[in-house]
């Protein structure tokens, strides 16, 4: 890991040398600039948001501490080239005479979990820096201006501690299939991919299909084939005990922007530790033929000391959204549970023979 880290650092040294401490203005990229009047519209005169879109990007959700709000174009291009170089490097042949990987694990971290995951060619995490309003962004969060989620409230901290305690005392994490994460159970999204808010997962399949009528807007997230139906101009959310996956979404038009308010989130779909009073406001604005600027606001003063939010460019794509039917091939869940049982048997045998 260390030598890979060193290579990554070297690749980016020049970026740093050219200065992160630049004003936002110096990070201006050519503005899309298409006149709103030329944008495609539906029969009822609304901006046409329909089609297939991707929010894949190499810009992280949270801004690294100390980084400025935007890159210069040269910095952005260098980062993108660094990513492309990396893909190329990982596509190079391996030694055909290689032996098995190291006993005790290969040292990989994260989801690759010391066993190395799988080849890079399977993934498609995004290869471009996010551009919004002509700026090459260093984070998707833009409010507050430091690009980072505000502090938890006292109640938010207590809630996080209570949740950790509940996880600790309910049993081992492999003791029951329902103790496993929603994505692993093929139930919902990766992270907040389906949302709301709809955020990239930085792995693959960051694709959405939007279908729009006068009365409804449908958003299909490829991960994990999650469909959200937004009711246009509905007057009220359902009672508080009605809590569907992805919450209850009501939409309206403010000029040429689709505004969607979502509440009533499912109790198992907890966005970053939010409370059950979470309200998410999304704003979809088609700024040119190939771009929707997606803005989101997280309103949950029970959890965070202030509302916060961000901006994500959705890029139009001609590619298809494929079905992500997940249960059929989900051998991993069974392997994980049977692996835990096998290790329990092994431990019991050792104890007996002691």
């Amino acid at each position, binding site marked *: *890991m260390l030598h*890979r880290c060193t290579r*990554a650092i070297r690749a*980016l*040294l020049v970026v*740093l040398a050219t200065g*992160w401490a630049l004003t936002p203005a110096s990070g201006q990229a050519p503005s899309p600039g298409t006149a709103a009047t030329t944008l495609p519209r539906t029969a009822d005169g609304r901006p046409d948001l329909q089609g297939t879109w991707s929010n894949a990007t*190499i810009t*992280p959700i949270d801004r*690294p501490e*100390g*980084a400025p709000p935007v890159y210069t174009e040269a910095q952005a291009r260098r980062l993108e080239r*660094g*990513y492309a170089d990396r893909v*190329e490097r990982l*596509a190079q*042949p391996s030694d*055909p005479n*290689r032996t*098995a*990987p190291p*006993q005790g*694990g290969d040292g990989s971290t994260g*989801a*690759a*979990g010391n*066993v*190395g*995951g*799988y*080849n*890079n*060619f*399977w*993934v*498609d995490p995004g*290869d471009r820096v996010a551009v919004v309003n002509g700026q090459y962004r260093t984070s998707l969060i833009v409010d507050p201006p430091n690009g980072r989620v505000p502090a938890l409230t006292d109640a938010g901290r207590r809630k996080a501690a209570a949740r950790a305690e509940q996880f600790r005392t309910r049993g081992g994490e492999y003791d029951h299939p329902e103790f496993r994460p929603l*994505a*692993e159970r093929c139930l919902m999204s*990766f992270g907040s991919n389906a949302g709301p808010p709809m955020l990239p*997962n930085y*792995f*693959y*399949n960051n694709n959405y299909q939007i279908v729009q009528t006068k009365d409804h807007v449908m958003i299909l997230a*490829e991960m994990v084939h999650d469909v959200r139906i937004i009711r246009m101009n509905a007057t009220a959310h359902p009672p508080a005990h009605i809590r569907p996956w992805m919450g209850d979404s009501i939409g309206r038009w403010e000029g040429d922007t689709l505004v969607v308010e979502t509440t009533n989130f499912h109790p198992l779909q907890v966005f970053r530790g939010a409370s059950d009073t979470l309200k998410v406001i999304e704003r979809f604005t088609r700024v040119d033929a190939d771009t929707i600027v997606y803005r989101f606001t997280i309103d949950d003063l029970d959890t965070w000391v202030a509302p916060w939010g961000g901006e994500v460019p959705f890029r139009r794509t*001609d590619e*298809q959204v*494929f079905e*992500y*039917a*997940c249960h*059929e091939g989900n*051998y991993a869940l069974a*392997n*994980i549970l*049977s692996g*835990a*049982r*096998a*290790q329990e048997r092994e431990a019991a045998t050792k104890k007996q023979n002691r």
Partner: protein
Amino acid sequence: MRRTMLLVCAGVLAVAGVRVAAHHAFGAEFDPNAPVRLQGKIVRLEWVNPHTWIHMEITKGDAKEVWAVEGGTPNTLLRRGLTRDTLTIGTEIIVDGYQTKDHSLKRANGRDVTFTDGRKIFMGSSGTGAPRDGRDPTETTKKPGGR
């Protein structure tokens, strides 16, 4: 400066891990104390979500065993025009990875899956050989195919 360098490094590696897994924690499924190197012919492909499984037959002494090797989502490859038919049954491959924690199963993660000359399987680009690396202006992401 050192801190900033580490930040950038962490960001880069977090965004694009060297060998990655997303749908589930691979460390929970596979045993770091059971490394394997498998060489043999593909006998079956399960081109399914959440993870593709490549079944291969290996020879162990006089016996033959069929192992299943876990890869990633087929959707990403489908968008590049690569389908399960891209890999022919009978093709000989080399896999290194780790066996499942349940050792009664002959399953492993496909940490590195290559042809016998070391080339990675599933490549496709007219540029550098890297898939969709952005270096070839004539390369488009829209390719025929897909099942």
